[in-house]
């Protein structure tokens, strides 16, 4: 068990699909729901646009967690994108876990445009978990540390 560092601020890259999750995040904002500022959102058209390279890139550059958000299964704006995401990310996350990267650092969540509260909740949970785990030491790139 690692000692919790109170000053540790986990950096989180959150990929949000334009149609559901990004709108869900917008709704979290317009509903004035709080979640940690360490969460930074990148807008993508669909969760299926997330390449494993992007996930690794984030870890390389110092992210402590990566969370991908898409429309609920069945609700993808492009019909099927999130189904591909689900397979790809399940396998990728499983592989990272296999290499000993803590599995709590990666997450895939379905957040609809109506689920502002859920977006905030998921982000709070995710960051809370990262707080417990501490900084990403296993998948960072030494050159990218300050």
């Amino acid at each position, binding site marked *: 068990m690692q000692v919790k560092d109170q000053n540790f601020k986990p950096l989180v890259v959150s990929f949000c699909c334009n149609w559901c999750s990004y709108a869900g995040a917008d709704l979290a904002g317009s509903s004035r729901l709080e979640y940690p500022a360490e969460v930074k959102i990148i807008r993508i058209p669909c969760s299926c646009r997330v390449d*494993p*390279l992007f996930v*690794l*890139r984030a*870890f*390389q550059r110092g992210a402590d967690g990566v969370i991908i958000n898409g429309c609920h*299964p*069945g609700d993808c704006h492009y019909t*099927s994108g999130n*189904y*591909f995401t*689900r*397979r*790809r*990310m*399940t*396998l*990728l*996350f*499983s*592989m*990272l*876990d*296999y*290499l*000993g*990267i*803590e*599995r709590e650092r*990666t*997450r*895939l969540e379905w957040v609809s445009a109506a689920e502002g509260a859920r977006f905030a909740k998921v982000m709070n949970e995710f960051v809370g978990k990262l707080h417990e785990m501490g900084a990403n030491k*296993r*998948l*960072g*790139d*030494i*050159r990218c540390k300050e």
Partner: protein
Amino acid sequence: MRQKAHELLSSGAVGAVLAWEKGELPYDTSPAVFRDAEALDKMVYNGFCGSNLSKYLIEQGKQDEKVLVFLKPCDTYSLNQLLSENRVAREKLHIIGIGCKGKLDVEKLRTQGIKGITGIEENETLKIQTLYGDHELPREDVLLEKCLSCKGKDHKVYDELIGEDLSADTEQGDKYAKVAELEGQTPAERFAFWRGELSKCIRCNACRNTCPSCTCLKCVFDNAHSGVAAKVNATEFEENMFHIIRAFHVAGRCSDCGECSRVCPQGIPIHLLNRKFIKDISGFYGEFQAGETAELNSPLLCYDLEDAEPNIISKREGDN
């Protein structure tokens, strides 16, 4: 085999023959293209012909001629995968399926202290002549890693089969044993294991170059415009990234031919990364063997509405 090759080459039915060529030493064989019936003398097929010829067909297939290729049962899976991805045109091939009793790993001979080999008689028991005297040892002790979990003696694609029943009755080992062992460890142990292995990587790209699924015209890691190009592993991260992405790019396409590990000069068990994906794919989305047929779609190109969510990873392995 040689006779068949001779026949087809001299009749003009094929323009080239893709097979193995003997080298200087008894265990030294390498893939070769024969265009000339005379040269076929150098052709060889023995216990050291482990290499998978299917990938060479991509390059050979570009000529305007038919190619004769000899494939062991396991090689046909790779070929099917290539056919499914339009990397090779079936009509340009004449495929002869040949038997296989499991191929030998010269490294394993060496670790048994057998050096200076001058000749080998292959039977269930191997008789090996060396500069320092003769040795005898059971064949199964020195089989290639990939042969320990043989896919069986059936050819999945061929035009004709020769050398009836040359194949051994294969016994299928548990190919996931090592993967499962790693899965059973703590993340810290797994991390230590893979750090130990991947830190050996010298980025020679042999695994990539030999892999019959790594068939991009230009690899992302070689493409200066891709944003991730890297010729060497400058940091631990790049070691990890290269191997994760390499395995991911062949996930659902890798037939588990084991060439990557066979050719790795550093002895990294690269196939354990591929097998992890194969195990997960088969576990999550139903039993799957890439290259079983040329019509098969990679599980990453399709989906099921009821697919498992990523948290299955945690559910499956408990809270270790």
